[in-house]
């Protein structure tokens, strides 16, 4: 369980990214943060692994205030997948997946063996193990990113617009894959996107943000669709829908 208690973030230039956020993220489910750019969703995500510290308020994981935890160690215990995969260009696929276990002091050989297993888990052919990221397609890179995020078998997996930069076909494939993975792995996934379709497809719980880090509505996809809290929520969902109706 991840909890935000009255969390506010003001950047040095005075921009208020998040204002008085109270939010509970249930364990072993996919919670999707959706909103347009500037809604603070990525900032909120980054508060979970202390990439960003709140100006005031507290973030708790399983009841423990993470403000008291050493950031680097905290980050190594939480999976992180980002847009454009964020892979290290100078490391092979296998070593990229093994990054975090090696940082935690595991033997390279053990970490690589586990990385090889993870390649299968995320549907990557073993022959790609010794390639460098630049030699992979966008979809393959993203799978490597997911494998890296899972490498230490974390309870929490943070995904920051992970499928934002791949083409629609590959994106659909990766979304299906993520659903399959989640049904097997049962992680607490926090997923950021600006695509309402993606949010409804993947989310057990959807948090729709308004500009300035305000929560528009929290609920299951069905709840948001049937009972939008206000015009903003209804408008945001509507703006994303027409294309879906055509399908």
């Amino acid at each position, binding site marked *: 369980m991840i909890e935000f208690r009255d969390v506010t973030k003001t950047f040095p230039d005075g921009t208020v990214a998040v204002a008085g956020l109270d939010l509970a993220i249930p364990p072993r489910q996919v919670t999707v943060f959706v909103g347009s750019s500037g809604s603070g969703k990525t900032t909120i995500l*980054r508060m979970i*692994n202390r*990439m960003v510290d709140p100006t005031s308020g507290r973030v708790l994981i399983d009841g423990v205030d993470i403000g008291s935890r050493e950031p*680097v*160690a905290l*980050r*190594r215990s939480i999976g*992180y997948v*980002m847009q*454009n995969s*964020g*892979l*290290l*260009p*100078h*490391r092979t696929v296998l070593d990229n997946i093994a*990054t*975090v276990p090696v*940082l*935690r002091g595991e033997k390279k050989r053990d970490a690589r063996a586990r990385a090889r297993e993870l390649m299968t888990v995320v549907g990557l052919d073993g022959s790609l193990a010794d*390639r*460098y990221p*630049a*030699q992979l397609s966008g979809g393959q890179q993203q799978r490597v990113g997911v494998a*890296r995020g899972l490498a230490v078998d974390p309870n929490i997996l943070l995904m920051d617009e992970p499928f934002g930069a791949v083409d629609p076909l590959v994106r659909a494939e990766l979304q299906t894959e993520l659903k399959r993975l989640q049904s097997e792995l049962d992680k607490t996934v926090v997923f950021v996107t600006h695509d309402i379709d993606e949010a409804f497809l993947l989310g057990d719980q959807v948090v729709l943000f308004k500009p300035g880090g305000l929560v528009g509505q929290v609920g299951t996809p069905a709840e948001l669709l049937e009972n939008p809290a206000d015009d903003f929520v209804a408008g945001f969902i509507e703006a994303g829908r027409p294309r879906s109706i055509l399908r």
Partner: protein
Amino acid sequence: MTWLAGNWPQLVDYGLAHVLLSIPPIIVGFLLSLPFGWLANRYRVSRGVLLTLGGILYAIPSLPLFVLLPSLIGTKILDPLNVEVALTIYAFALMLRTTADGLASVGGDVKLSATAVGYGAFRRFVGVELPLAGPVLLAGIRVVSVSTVSLVTIGSVIGVNSLGFFFLDGYQRSFFTEVWVGIGGTLLIALVFDALLVLAGRALMPWTRTRRGALTAAYGRAQSRWAVLR
């Protein structure tokens, strides 16, 4: 030719001395440039100050520096250390800007991602930023290497012998074969150093080759597709 045959042992001796005098300044200058290059990128003020300082250091003429150093660092006038320290200063001054630029060229996305998965600051510098700055650093070291190999020869003026001895001696005796042998030998050393650096770069940075390989392959495919379309 007869001169060359007769003086072969001395040529080898001085050539070897030349090589040994060249290596430490290149390595130490490079290593010194790392923390200062990092510092130069850290704050805007430090960048201006350090890069200007580097420029000034490089502008000091070498001969006066060789002569001046004994009184500054307490060495004897004929001590090869004078040459080594002076050349290290030049190597550092030359390398500093390249190192700063190389480190600055590492993408923000990669650094952010490294931090997100749990790299601490120092480990990220050594394990991510430094290797990714590698191609730029290598280009810088190659320049430093050539420059150092050529500057070593000036040491001969103050009695620290290298292949530079042959220019001096040949010039004083108006014996130009000797001058040319000195120049040729110096060039040869510079070329060998450069080749070794390129090879080391290939061995240490395999990803740069494959990326270029991948790009060239993609280009080749595109070309052949064009050929088919035509």
